[in-house]
């Protein structure tokens, strides 16, 4: 028997319905209704940001190695639900072979960032030469709560490509899922839920980009806003980000992977530590 699934949102490790009580239908290429999903409001954004902020302390203080283990665990759990994801990708209108490929890439991407979790800090930090008696070094610290607008196409791979590097670096995120293809994102929330990812680290909302993105951009407690190209929404969003000097990243290649996806969402802290004398390469620090 075919049971029509109700897709809910994911906030603070729970699956509530939108506080607005609104829904919108998702249809396949023939116009048949596949499911109703939540049409989230800015109050859901508010709740999700509160959950993300609450989770930030604990998540950012986990050891890098432990975060890597948890990301790898997500990959394992995702792989275990291969059939469901491929079915949903196909339902949303791409071919079986493309769906296969997108799914495989998604798992690969998780493993890729799981590997980076305890390595990016060493690669991107530095000891800096200075002309005074100081040992001067720069290290990375996560920014905090990141707002993410997931790409419309590649609804699974695109989501993972933006969310995972952010949490890899110790941030917590609030994601507006693909508006037209949201099914995989809600199912991905179920994967996260069973993967030792603490509640609130990833919060996933479904709904209109035009409604959720401005709410994320204007929120004073969101530290950065990440998206693929959003066309004419770009400029008003950038203006909204000014109020709290929010970092704004637009990735034209949002289905790619790379170290910069992790390090972009890190602040650099530079420390000047007094030392007795300026040493050479073999100084005594």
């Amino acid at each position, binding site marked *: 028997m075919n049971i029509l699934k109700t897709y809910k949102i994911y906030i603070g490790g729970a699956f509530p319905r939108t506080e607005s009580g609104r829904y919108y239908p998702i249809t396949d290429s023939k116009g048949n209704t596949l499911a109703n999903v939540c049409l989230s409001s800015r109050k859901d*954004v508010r709740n999700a*940001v509160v959950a993300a902020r609450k989770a930030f302390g604990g998540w950012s203080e986990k050891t890098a190695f432990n975060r890597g283990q948890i990301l790898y665990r997500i990959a394992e759990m995702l792989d275990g639900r291969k059939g469901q994801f491929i079915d949903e990708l196909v339902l949303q209108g791409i071919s079986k072979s493309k769906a296969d490929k997108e799914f495989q890439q998604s798992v690969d991407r998780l493993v890729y960032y799981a590997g980076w979790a305890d390595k990016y800090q060493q690669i991107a930090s530095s000891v800096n030469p200075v002309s005074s008696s100081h040992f001067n070094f720069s290290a990375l610290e996560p920014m905090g709560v990141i707002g993410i607008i997931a790409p419309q196409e590649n609804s699974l791979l695109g989501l993972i490509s933006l969310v995972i590097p952010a949490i890899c670096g110790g941030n917590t995120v609030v994601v507006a899922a693909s508006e037209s293809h949201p099914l995989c994102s809600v199912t991905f929330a179920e994967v996260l839920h069973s993967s030792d990812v603490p509640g609130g680290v990833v919060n996933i909302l479904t709904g209109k980009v035009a409604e959720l993105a401005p709410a994320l951009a204007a*929120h*004073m*407690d969101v530290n950065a806003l990440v998206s693929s190209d959003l066309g004419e929404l770009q400029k008003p969003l950038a203006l909204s980000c000014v*109020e709290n000097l929010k970092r704004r990243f637009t990735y034209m290649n949002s289905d790619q992977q790379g170290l910069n996806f992790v390090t972009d969402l890190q602040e650099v802290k530079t420390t000047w530590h007094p030392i007795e004398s300026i040493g050479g390469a073999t100084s005594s620090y």
Partner: protein
Amino acid sequence: MIKTFDPNNMLSKITVDKVGVEERVARFQTRSIKNESKLQGLKMVLNMIDLTTLEGKDTPGKVQQMCYKAQHLHDVQPDLPTVAAVCVYPSMVSVARKALGNSSVKIASVSTAFPSGQSTREIKISDTKFAVDQGADEIDMVISRGKFLAGEYAFVFDEIAAIKEACGKARLKVILETGELSTLDNVRLASDIAIHAGADFIKTSTGKIQPAATMQVTYTMLMAIKDYYDKTGIMVGMKPAGGISTSKLALHNLVMVKEVLGNAWLTNEWFRFGASSLANDVLMQIMKSTTGLYQSSDYFSID
């Protein structure tokens, strides 16, 4: 004159309908409060807060910082009231007195071997007198819950009356510590004892025990105040304390006070919130109403 215990007056054994209380309280939480009245309500909440620090690790610096905050809640926003009072341990009253100067912010001091109240009457009285001498305007005493639960109501009554006497001009708030009283019937009885013994305010909790100021408990105490007022025409104040950390809950409490006791109680002379983190949440809500932007605690003072 010290009041004396009269069991016939006190032990009328008013029982509380718990289910009824829960239903009534649930209804207070469904009131829709629109923008303008919400803003007014939020400012009222600010003005009713007893900004509190009651920790073993309190230092003069911490108390000074809190006293500054009490007078300068969020200077970016004009037209904000101050809080009603600061609430500290007796040893910190002189520090607070100095830090507050001529400000209208009052100083409340806990006393009577707060928070447990497990000490002798002599010590409790001298504790109270010390706080008053140091400059406290208000005394927050705790009742002897052990004696109350053992049925020694006369002891509890006499103790409150004795402390009231020791307070002199200072107003007396009586903390029932409802989290340790088990039932709403006990809360009601303890409220009646405190009111009859001369309390100017009755207060739910020390903040050290959970559950603290639930709406059910506050409602039960408000009803005791109402019944006493109806009978004698004397107003008694109410202070829920502990666990009220969001604006929403604070507004629900105001709705309840208005609907149970009426507008006369909607001032900080008769109603207070004992809280440490509530002020910042209310400030954030006020800024949200003013700017339209959801706020971040990064931009508000640490409490």
